[in-house]
């Protein structure tokens, strides 16, 4: 059976919707788009498209190879589409969570979070190195269960398209029932925020239920606006630096490491990890935030030189 490539079909809609959001943001006097930031995001998207073309065949072959050993013959029945919808979304949740919790995959994913803006162009700021980092292994169990490789690839495309529209500040809230079940702009704004209370939360792809199930859900608080970006925001719009800066950071840290424990920590530990425990990991940032919340600080004077 052949299925359409949903992403290729959606490209014209992506273009039209981004332009519509630019116009709406302008009419609302919202500083949602900045030229160099948008250009960087779009070039990252183009690079992702190119690397996808280069690696798609190999990924299909690996998935098809695993499928030989499938436990069940699922085929393309109606319930297979329903089952792959749930199963692929669960895989996405874990891929996404692991990409935030381990630096080797964070290095591939960080570029998606590197914009300090949050708009539809941010959705296109996609990885250049995810396939090289083997992040696709998370989906291989689907082939082993028996989902046809074509169906898995189709559903991954559906998920990517769904996640495009949630990268916006122009939609505040969806109806309550929708917010309860699906990933929405509100939930995903939280995911892109660096506020300690929001950091590394809401990993969902399409269904927010996984975050609620696994304890990583945080609702958006209207009293605390999201501040977008990463803990160490970039000082560049250069796509090459955006794509590879964290990989370079890993190499730098591993070369400076004194022993194998440190080397492994720098590669597989959480982003920000340091051997002496002083690193600004998400948990450390959140713990410091909680500690500050329980004690009132007294500001001290500053001299201007």
């Amino acid at each position, binding site marked *: 059976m052949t299925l359409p490539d949903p992403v*290729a079909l959606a490209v014209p809609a992506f273009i039209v919707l981004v*332009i519509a959001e630019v116009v709406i943001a302008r009419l609302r006097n919202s500083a949602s788009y900045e030229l160099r930031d*948008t250009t960087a995001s779009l070039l990252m998207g183009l690079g992702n498209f190119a690397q996808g073309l280069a690696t798609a065949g190999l990924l299909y072959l690996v998935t098809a190879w695993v499928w030989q050993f499938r436990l069940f013959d699922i085929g393309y029945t109606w319930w297979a589409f329903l089952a792959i919808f749930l199963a692929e979304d669960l895989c996405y949740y874990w891929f996404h969570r692991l990409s935030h919790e381990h630096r080797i995959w964070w290095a591939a994913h960080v570029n998606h979070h590197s914009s300090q803006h949050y708009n539809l162009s941010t959705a296109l700021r996609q990885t250049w190195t995810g396939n090289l980092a083997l992040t696709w292994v998370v989906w291989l169990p689907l082939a082993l269960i028996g989902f046809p490789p074509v169906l898995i690839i189709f559903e991954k495309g559906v998920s990517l398209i769904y996640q495009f529209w949630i990268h916006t500040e122009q939609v505040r809230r969806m109806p309550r029932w929708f917010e309860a079940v699906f990933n929405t702009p509100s939930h995903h704004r939280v995911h892109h925020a*660096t506020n300690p209370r929001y950091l590394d939360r809401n990993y969902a792809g399409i269904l927010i239920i996984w975050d609620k199930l696994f304890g990583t859900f945080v609702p958006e608080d209207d009293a605390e606006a999201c501040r977008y970006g990463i803990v160490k925001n970039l000082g560049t719009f250069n796509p090459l630096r*955006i794509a590879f800066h964290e990989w370079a950071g890993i190499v730098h840290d591993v070369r400076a490491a004194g022993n194998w424990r440190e080397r492994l920590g720098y590669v597989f530990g959480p982003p920000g990890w340091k051997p002496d425990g002083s690193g600004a990991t998400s948990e450390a940032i959140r713990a410091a935030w909680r500690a500050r919340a329980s004690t009132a*600080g007294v500001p001290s004077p*500053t001299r201007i030189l």
Partner: protein
Amino acid sequence: MSPLDLILPVAGIALIILVVWLAGGLRSASIDDAETVRRHLALDHPEFEPGDLRLAADKRSALAIDRGKRRIAVLFALGDRVTIRIVVPGDLAGAAAHGGDLVLTLTDLGAHRIVLRLGDVVAAQVWAAQLDRLLIQGTEPQGGRSAAVLVA
């Protein structure tokens, strides 16, 4: 795959960039005063206590020394956003004065070279020496007191 599959994304990118530019998307953030610095630090790094502080003449960057720890905050405009880097020993590969500019070279490829246009040759030299002692050689007492004396 048809040629349209390649042409469409490229044409779409060009069109979006044009529309963003027409919508006034080319903007720059400004760091006008110490209050702006304090406000940004309080939001993103509330544990940072700015001691000595220097604003760039072009209002596109600023520098602050933590009064409690051996580290500095470098604030700089990136497009229409103010970006903050907390720089600790090991992060700074070099600090040099080039005329009235203070050029910081970080070990991080994500913000490798930051130029602060101080517009003051002496201040640039003093800050370069101060940061070298504080973050590279580790011989400067924390808090930036000697910088205050030297610049004053």
